[in-house]
């Protein structure tokens, strides 16, 4: 009844182009922003930040990045873990080399560095497609992890081979290092998520996005209409890697604090982010968030239910958790191959007609 476009007339094309054309959606979006920025920081504690919010926010950035490449441009990539590692090591080198520069700028620069690396590994995409491209990006994954293990310069010749984040502040408030407050790290990540989501949305609704989707849907027709396949594929790799680099940088510096590259940024990470966008919905910004939320929250929820409520032993619960998550993914993909975003769209369609479906 309240959720429809009837009566909400758009008189300019700019109005018609906005992200949330339906009033209700727009208010809901403002409400979420208000809640996330002005309420959550005051009630949040360490457990919620470390177990739920921080991984959700950081994985959201990575999922948006990968979704641009896979969902919008149709180029399958299994190199996400490697590219996150590039972001992490770039920010580490920048933090230690230029301690006086703001961490905010370092993280953006780390994204830029990852972007360049992404373009380099995106070059084969001009010649190969689909699964073959996936294998080529797999090479990036293994090569990058090997490189960061092998060359001591990357981890500043530390004895353990690990990198660990020194304390850095924004406006005098610590956001990295051991003495951070829950709300500070949360807000820091949230700002990046908001910026990234806005940029992704703006790019995908404009010319750049249409070029990507044209390449995804039919590359021959895209070329005949005037899309330069090399440029638009590489731009997708660049933007995607930028986001993934930012998320890797945040993952290392703000979330974990210390990282051993093979463990944290291995092939598992690539698959995890890929699952997020498949479950969330390819080619949808909302889907990136939904997928990240699903795969971050579900294990936490299961653990709380199995160990906390039912009192099962931790090891049994941990193994069961794997099986349940795996089964859910399979059921999900059979029931709704287009992911959570599609469920959301269907729900909105239904809601538009409710309560008179005819």
């Amino acid at each position: 009844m309240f959720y429809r476009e009837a009566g909400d007339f758009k008189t300019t094309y700019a109005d018609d182009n906005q992200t949330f054309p339906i009033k209700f959606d727009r208010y809901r979006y403002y409400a979420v922003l208000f809640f996330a920025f002005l309420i959550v920081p005051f009630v949040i504690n360490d457990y919620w930040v470390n177990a739920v919010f921080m991984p959700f926010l950081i994985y959201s950035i990575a999922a948006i990045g990968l979704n641009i490449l896979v969902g919008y441009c149709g180029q399958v990539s299994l190199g996400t873990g490697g590219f996150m590692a590039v972001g992490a090591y770039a920010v580490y080198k920048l933090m230690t080399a230029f301690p006086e520069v703001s961490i905010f700028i370092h993280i953006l620069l780390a994204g830029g560095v990852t972007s360049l690396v992404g373009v380099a590994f995106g070059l084969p995409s001009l010649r190969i497609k689909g699964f073959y491209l996936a294998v080529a990006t797999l090479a990036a994954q293994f090569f990058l992890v090997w490189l960061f293990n092998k060359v001591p310069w990357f981890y500043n010749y530390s004895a353990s081979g690990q990198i660990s984040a020194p304390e850095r502040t924004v406006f005098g408030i610590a956001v990295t290092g051991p003495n951070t407050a829950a709300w500070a790290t949360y807000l820091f990540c949230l700002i990046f998520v908001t910026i990234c989501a806005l940029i992704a949305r703006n790019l995908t609704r404009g010319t750049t996005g249409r070029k990507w989707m044209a390449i995804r849907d039919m590359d021959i027709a895209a070329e005949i209409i005037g899309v330069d396949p090399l440029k638009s594929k590489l731009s997708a790799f660049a933007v995607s890697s930028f986001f993934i680099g930012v998320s890797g940088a945040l993952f290392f510096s703000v979330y974990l604090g210390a990282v051993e590259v093979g463990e944290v940024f291995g092939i598992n990470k690539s698959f995890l982010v890929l699952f997020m966008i498949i479950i969330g919905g390819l080619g949808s910004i909302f889907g990136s968030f939904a997928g990240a939320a699903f795969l971050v929250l579900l294990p936490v929820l299961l653990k709380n239910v199995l160990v906390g409520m039912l009192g099962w032993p931790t090891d049994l619960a941990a193994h069961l958790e794997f099986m349940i998550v795996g089964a859910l993914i399979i059921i999900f993909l059979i029931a709704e191959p287009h992911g959570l975003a599609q469920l959301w769209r269907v729900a909105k369609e239904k809601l538009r007609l409710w309560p008179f479906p005819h």
Partner: protein
Amino acid sequence: MSDQMTEGYITEDGRKIGGTLMEMKNITLRFGGVKAITDISFDIKEGEIRAIIGPNGAGKSSMLNVISGFYVPQEGEVWYKGAKRPQMKPYQVAQQGIARTFQNIALFEGMSVLDNVMTGRLNHMKTNMFQQAIWKGKAEKEEVENREVVEKIIDFLEIQSIRKTPVGRLPYGLKKRVELARALAVEPHLLLLDEPMAGMNVEEKEDMSRFILDVNDEFGTTIALIEHDMGVVMDLSDRVVVMDYGKKIGDGTPDEVRNNQDVIDAYLGVSHD
């Protein structure tokens, strides 16, 4: 009328046709040992509707692919707007103002009708990625300006009601129309139509014919089309090239072509005794 003319002419229905827009000179295209096109020359004049006809496998689509840059002929030259065209990629051909549709529809299935038609405006949009990332300002202004052009085309082809529908959900006839809309959004100087009426019923064919004539009339677009329906071809086109087994066997007005003995033989067959 002969095919040697370099200047324009007046059509039977009184339209004025300009000078040569595109000229194919002695084009030969081989795939390995197979000769798809053998030594074909013809021209397309500004403002005319030029048909390419011929039996199956005559090399018509190959010819269109040569024009749009998919195939590179082994011999011969393509002249466009009075200059010899260097070898170029399809997207560069598009940037020169040549748009086309495909025999089997090549739309972007995952995108809405509006987005499909908007892709046709790519070469008219100049903002870079950073401006688009910010959106407010230049990118939004440019988007709105191009949207206005696209809406005119959507009006023109009478597809207003489906502009937000994903293309994948549309029936065949409408998809053909959307594909034409996308090609028109380029504002092409030369529009190539590969069997625009294949698989359509009579009403849809009549609609499409009207659109083609209107496009030519209102925008002054030069059109080269391949079609199998002889009635349509004879009615629509100003001049016709006839191909058979990769060779040109006729060229001229529909009437000239209809009475050409080689053409009659190719279509009806000859007895081999």
